[in-house]
């Protein structure tokens, strides 16, 4: 008797099910980092462009840092300092001159030879070149030229002192070193890197699934802590948290709203770390949109908002209230705002302004933290007699609301709940509120000549004490305009396995090459 493929007995089905069950139970499910060979980390977006001059998001910067090293990099720890990377020696000769000498023996892959000072010159001058149209040209706004002394050493010449140089230019991918020959031969670089030279080499990119970095045996510096790093793009932080709890990830950022829950009940084998974020969240008031064109109304709104309650509600007690746009630890961080919660004073100001039954709109990004914050603000405003309508927008719409080039909604925009991230220099926070940014990113249309002048001074002042005074005054001016209610710097929540020792910048951003087995 012959049996066809589909002629299966009941006993056969049971045997098959049993075998499947055993196979499932025996499936090896363990954190890959346990053997110290593979580290699996989450990034919040997939890579799109690996050319340092055109990088789009921080996760690309994390990869670029490992495969195209710069002269220096951020040091891990709680203070914003730097350490040598591709450079063996760096010295600030004077306010406008920096000497560098490269490590000997840094080799580019794909046969592009050893890294030289000429490659440094090419890479830096390329980003600064207006013809290249790099969005990061501003990082080298003060560059005059890079002088090549010999194969390994050179000098960076600036036109004037540039305070952010050591904090937010040199340690970032704006100083990543590319091979001149490779770039001239091969041109554009998007998702397929060539002539890599860092402690890791990118060997594979499976779109929306994984980017693989493999330790570079030819790197003359400190070798990476893992043989391989797998970077998994997961946009949703809740999914990433579940992925971590299921054992599929070794390191991830968490949602701010999850920090308290994870702190109180960390997953098995997981360590929760909280780091102060540099980001800043604020409510902006568009000064040209009635009734906010009345300074008394704006001041009343400043006094109406119970910032502590807004932040506690939105971030479940995990984040602190801020005093401005400059985070603690940076020059210019203030101790307090000038106009804080005082609902009685708010009512007095509204009476003084002779207005009643006010109606305003509050535009927000459609995220749960923002919505909760907006609802508390709505209740605060109602308490002083102002009706507020919350308008939720998806990210694509939200980020163009105040942009004059994207339509005319900027004229109707009234209250906005904004959040910007930044690099560790106060100028990164203040730059978006200058008069040049009105209608671009300055949606409050805050226009103050003293502020603009102070911003310029802050860029060329190297003394930290002087910079502290400058940036504090700038935030006072913002407060006085009545166009800002500063809410929080948030907090960065991090989850990592207890078998992993992460290398983190002071704000919690990863330095992947510094991760080691614990």
């Amino acid at each position, binding site marked *: 008797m012959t049996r066809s493929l589909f002629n299966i007995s009941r006993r056969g089905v049971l045997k098959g099910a049993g075998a499947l069950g055993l196979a*499932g*139970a025996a*499936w090896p*499910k363990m954190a890959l980092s346990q053997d110290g060979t593979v580290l699996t980390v989450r990034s919040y977006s997939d890579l*799109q*462009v690996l050319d340092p001059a*055109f990088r*789009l*998001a921080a996760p690309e910067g994390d990869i670029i840092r490992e495969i195209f090293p710069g002269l220096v990099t951020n040091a891990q720890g709680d203070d914003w300092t730097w350490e040598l990377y591709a450079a063996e020696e760096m010295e600030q000769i004077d306010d406008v001159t920096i000497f560098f000498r490269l490590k000997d023996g840094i080799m580019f892959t794909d046969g592009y030879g050893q890294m030289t000072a000429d490659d440094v010159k090419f890479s830096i001058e390329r980003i600064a070149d207006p013809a290249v*149209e790099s*969005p*990061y040209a*501003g990082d080298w706004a003060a560059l005059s030229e890079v002088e090549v002394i010999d194969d390994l050493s050179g000098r960076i010449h600036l036109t004037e002192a540039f305070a952010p140089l050591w904090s937010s230019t040199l340690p970032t991918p704006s100083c990543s070193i590319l091979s001149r020959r490779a770039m001239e031969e091969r041109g*554009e670089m*998007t*998702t397929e890197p060539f002539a890599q030279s860092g402690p890791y080499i990118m060997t*594979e990119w*499976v*779109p*929306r*699934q*994984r980017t693989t970095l493999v330790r570079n045996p030819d790197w003359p510096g400190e070798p990476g802590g893992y043989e391989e790093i797998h970077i*998994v*793009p*997961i*946009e*949703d932080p809740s*999914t*990433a948290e*579940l*992925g971590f*709890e*299921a*054992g*599929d*990830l070794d390191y991830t950022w968490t949602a701010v709203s999850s920090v308290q829950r994870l702190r109180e009940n960390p997953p098995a084998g997981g360590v929760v770390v909280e780091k102060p974020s540099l980001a800043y969240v604020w409510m902006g008031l568009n000064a040209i949109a009635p009734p906010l064109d009345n300074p008394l109304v704006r001041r009343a709104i400043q006094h109406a908002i119970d910032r502590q309650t807004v932040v506690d509600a939105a971030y479940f007690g995990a984040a602190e209230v801020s005093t401005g746009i400059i985070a603690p630890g940076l020059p210019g961080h203030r101790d307090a705002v000038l106009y804080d919660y005082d609902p009685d004073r708010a009512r007095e100001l509204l009476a003084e302004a002779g207005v009643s039954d006010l109606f305003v709109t509050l535009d927000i990004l459609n995220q749960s933290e923002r919505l909760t914050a907006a609802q508390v603000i709505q209740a605060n405003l109602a308490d002083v007699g102002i009706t507020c309508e919350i308008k939720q927008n*998806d*990210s*694509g*719409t*939200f*980020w*163009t609301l105040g*942009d004059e*080039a*994207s*339509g005319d*909604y900027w004229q109707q925009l009234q209250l906005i709940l904004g959040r*910007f991230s930044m690099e560790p220099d106060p100028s990164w926070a203040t730059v*978006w509120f200058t008069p040049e940014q009105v209608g*671009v*990113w300055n949606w409050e249309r805050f226009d103050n000549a003293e502020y603009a002048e102070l911003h310029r001074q802050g860029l060329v002042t190297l003394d930290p004490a002087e910079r502290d005074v400058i940036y504090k005054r700038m935030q006072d001016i913002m407060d006085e305009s009545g166009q800002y209610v500063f809410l929080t710097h948030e907090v960065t929540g991090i989850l990592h396995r207890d078998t992993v020792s992460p290398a983190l910048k002071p704000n919690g951003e990863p330095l992947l090459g510094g991760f080691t087995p614990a």
Partner: protein
Amino acid sequence: MLAYAAKRLGLSVVIVSVAMALLFCMIYLIPGDPASVALGPRASEAMKEALRVRMGLDQPVWTQFWNFYSSAWRGDFGNEVLSGRPVIEVVLQQLPYTLALIVGGITWSVGLGIPLGCWAAVKRGSFADRVVGVLSVAVIAVPSFVVAIYALLIFAVSLRWLPAIGAGEPGHLGDQLIHLILPSLAVGLGWVGYIARMVRASMLEVLEAPHIRTARAFGLPDALVTYRYALTIAILPTVTLLGIGIGQMLSSAVFAEIVFARPGVGRLVYDAILTRNFPVVTGAVLVTTAFFVLVNLIADLVIGALDPRVRSSF
């Protein structure tokens, strides 16, 4: 049969054309400037303008519509805004993951739905029939993203039997299948209920048919009568239902791909809408629309081939 096939094919072309027009209108009406969103805060106005020109957004709306229409019919969806990769390449890279998810979902729905439907029909009026009825309605009512989250919490987080995220090791079929179990369950579970209800209803009708009664009168075994003679006829409406079901599963795939952090067309479109990457949105939506129309065309042709009454009534 040829005339029937030609008519169905013509209708499919019309459907795709209308879908393209609707898609263009929807994209045109979405607020937000793609150049600003794509290039980020540090881009200058000149850079944004250059990108707008590259995307053809500086052209009059009718020119944009014509360019979109004529290019799409040639299969040219342009290049991705920032990486410059051909959109068709980007979409086709993601499509197999979504197809695998849908095939997995169909496997769950057919593999569980048909036996349950048959069983309920054979046990008509019994306690088992009522249980299957209640369960069917229950799984239809539960949204796929709820199934996804609970499946993930139970089988991946609590029991740690199955992986929570990703699509498995590239090139490792076993790992990819294991990674497919939970997402495909989330996509297919609702359809278990639909198919069970449909098969039960069809079976009850067919089991009363004269040829089945004749077969029983001849003394053929119950199992042979039920599964060989009744089920083969009763299963026909399920083919049509599955044609529609694939469209529904494509929508569910978006949630499954986000919750399980799987690559796929659903997540590609979702991300592309958020970043206003319109060439990718149009390319991905049109490819999936064409796929859906093709599947329904095949389902119609299969039904037409099996049932002459359908051909004559069209």
